[in-house]
């Protein structure tokens, strides 16, 4: 099975190489530059009546990257996707695809395809006809149409389902038909709106790695919307974190996680300790807002001196929360405030960990793991 999939996908890659504009690929080879902006949003806002769904977004998505848009419900992710696809026109700002201004171009004139949140399969067409739809519209010759549709169905492991009606498929199978229907057109950009949202955890993890593999081999730019931070961190080359119609931070998963730019990002992507005000002044020597990840904090016996590159803060364990693989220690600091420290349960079992309640400790973490936050404007 995997062998078959690889051949299919490499066919797509080869033909897709042509897609990336020969000038660009040769420039890549000669200069070693491969930062080609596929999607550029400049100052894009979208208002629905009084609601600012998208509020001044600037975004550059590079060719061939797996780009995720992460944010809570209602933060404007779908709207940004619809602006890129052309279903909505921005109230202000411009949208560019491969350097061309497409702000006023309707969806059918844009070289992007969408995998919809609810799949949006055509109920009156079979799986094969659904996949062939885009090719039919573009008048691709019959023989090529059939072979490309078969390839696409093979890529998503649905060879035997061509003649079924979408109504006779499971959620996961429908999702894969939607993916095949988009991939078969070999778009330069594929937009995916929470495509794994309706799947159970196991299928979700399977589809995550399959999507990632398809993206890598076909070298299509993926713009992937999700509100699941684990999904965004594990799959993406870069992540944009949305909040209330604005982008709080764009960066690699490691950047976003290790160096959150704002309190919102620190809180939304993983859990985080906020150190601010007097506490910050006493421990870190300056006022301001800082974030420290719980798993970066070491718990030491009272009176222990920290290493030279570390910050130390004495305190008392107020509570212990056992969570299977890890234990969370909630520590009240002498400097004021409460920090959470996370420890792998490598040497201790649950009962032993719970006995630490009330003990005096010193918390220590590397100075570089203290991240200064800027307040969102």
């Amino acid at each position: 099975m995997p062998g078959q999939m690889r051949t299919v996908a490499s066919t797509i890659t080869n033909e897709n190489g042509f897609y990336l504009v020969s000038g660009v690929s040769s420039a890549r080879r000669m200069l070693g530059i491969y930062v080609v902006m596929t999607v550029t949003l400049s100052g894009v806002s979208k208002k629905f009546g009084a609601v600012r769904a998208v509020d001044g977004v600037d975004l550059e998505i590079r060719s061939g990257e797996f780009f995720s848009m992460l944010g809570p419900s209602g933060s404007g992710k779908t709207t940004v996707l619809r602006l890129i696809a052309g279903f909505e026109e921005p109230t202000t700002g411009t949208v560019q695809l491969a350097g061309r201004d497409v702000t006023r171009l309707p969806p059918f004139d844009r070289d992007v395809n969408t995998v919809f949140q609810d799949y949006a399969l055509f109920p009156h067409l079979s799986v094969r006809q659904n996949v062939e739809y885009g090719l039919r519209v573009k008048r691709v010759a019959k023989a090529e149409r059939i072979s490309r549709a078969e390839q696409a169905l093979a890529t998503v492991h649905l060879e035997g389902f061509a003649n079924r009606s979408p109504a006779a498929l499971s959620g996961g199978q429908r999702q894969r038909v939607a993916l095949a229907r988009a991939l078969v057109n070999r778009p330069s950009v594929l937009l995916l709106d929470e495509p794994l949202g309706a799947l159970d955890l196991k299928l979700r993890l399977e589809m995550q790695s399959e999507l990632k593999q398809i993206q890598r081999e076909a070298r299509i730019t993926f713009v992937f919307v999700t509100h699941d931070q684990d999904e965004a961190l594990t799959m993406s080359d870069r992540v944009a974190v949305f909040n209330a119609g604005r982008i709080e931070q764009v960066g690699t998963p490691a950047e976003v996680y290790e160096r959150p730019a704002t309190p919102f990002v620190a809180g939304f992507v993983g859990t985080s300790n906020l150190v601010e005000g007097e506490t910050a002044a006493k421990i870190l020597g300056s006022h301001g807002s800082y974030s420290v990840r719980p798993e970066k904090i070491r718990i030491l016996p009272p009176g222990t001196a920290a290493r030279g590159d570390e910050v130390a803060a004495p305190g008392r364990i107020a509570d212990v929360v056992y969570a299977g693989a890890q234990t969370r220690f909630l520590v009240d600091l002498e400097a004021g405030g409460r920090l959470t420290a996370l420890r792998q349960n490598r040497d201790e079992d649950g009962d032993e960990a719970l006995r630490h309640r009330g003990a005096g400790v010193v918390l220590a973490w590397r100075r570089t793991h203290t991240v200064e936050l800027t307040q969102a404007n």
Partner: protein
Amino acid sequence: MHRSPVRRLAGALHRRPGLRLTALLSAPMAWLVLAYLGSLGVLLLSAFWTTNDFTSQVEYVWNTDNFANILSDPVYRTVALRTLGIAVGVTVVDGALALPMAFYMARVARPRSRRLLLVAVTAPLWAGYLVKAYAWWVMLSHGGVLDWAVGTPGFGVPAVVITLSYLWLPYMVLPLYAAFAQLPDSVLDASADLGARPWRTFRSVVLPLVKPALIAGSIFTFSLSLGDYLTVQIVGGTTQMLGNVIASDVTLNLPMAAAVSCVPVLLIVGYLLAVRRTGAWENL
């Protein structure tokens, strides 16, 4: 454990939905079979009797003379074909009018004007049939509103088609409206996303999805037109439809009237069989 007979019955009904449905529907079904299909059966039966030419008494002699008459007499054939043509014409006119109307109401109009339009479309249903037919008689007559605006076709087949189209239009608009309103936006977006221009999306996605509703509406307009005999008397001039033939035969020659009534029934049955495969029946 003790269970009362009532509870046991309730349990049995719950486990067997078929039984439950039978119990629930048996009384109305009996009524339907007796009163409705029974009268149709009597109609069919009486078509095989004859009338004594001198006494006008029905003679209960089993024969097929009436049907032979219909097939051989060119007058009956002409009237039957004309009726069929009018019914098809009305259905086509209503389909052509209702498609854009229903589309506009369901997909373009704002909620406020949508409600107004729905009221406007259904309003004629509240007025009496004769009032509406005579209203059209007034409009179609020489010197009437239509004559003054665009010219009137006068009284005849076109006038019948126009008036019947008006009368049955709501029966076409309402199912289409429901179908358009149910179309998911995302399916239309998906079509545009895959490169289809609006007209292509209409042909390849919208039309197939509203087809069952179109057929459901056409069953109404087609069968209502086939059975009509009043409108044609009012605006048809000298035009005759099957309904008129039946109406004039009914007092003089009941068996013949019954035989003629079988023609529209057969036409409708034929039409229903033709559209059965399209899934329109689930939409009625």
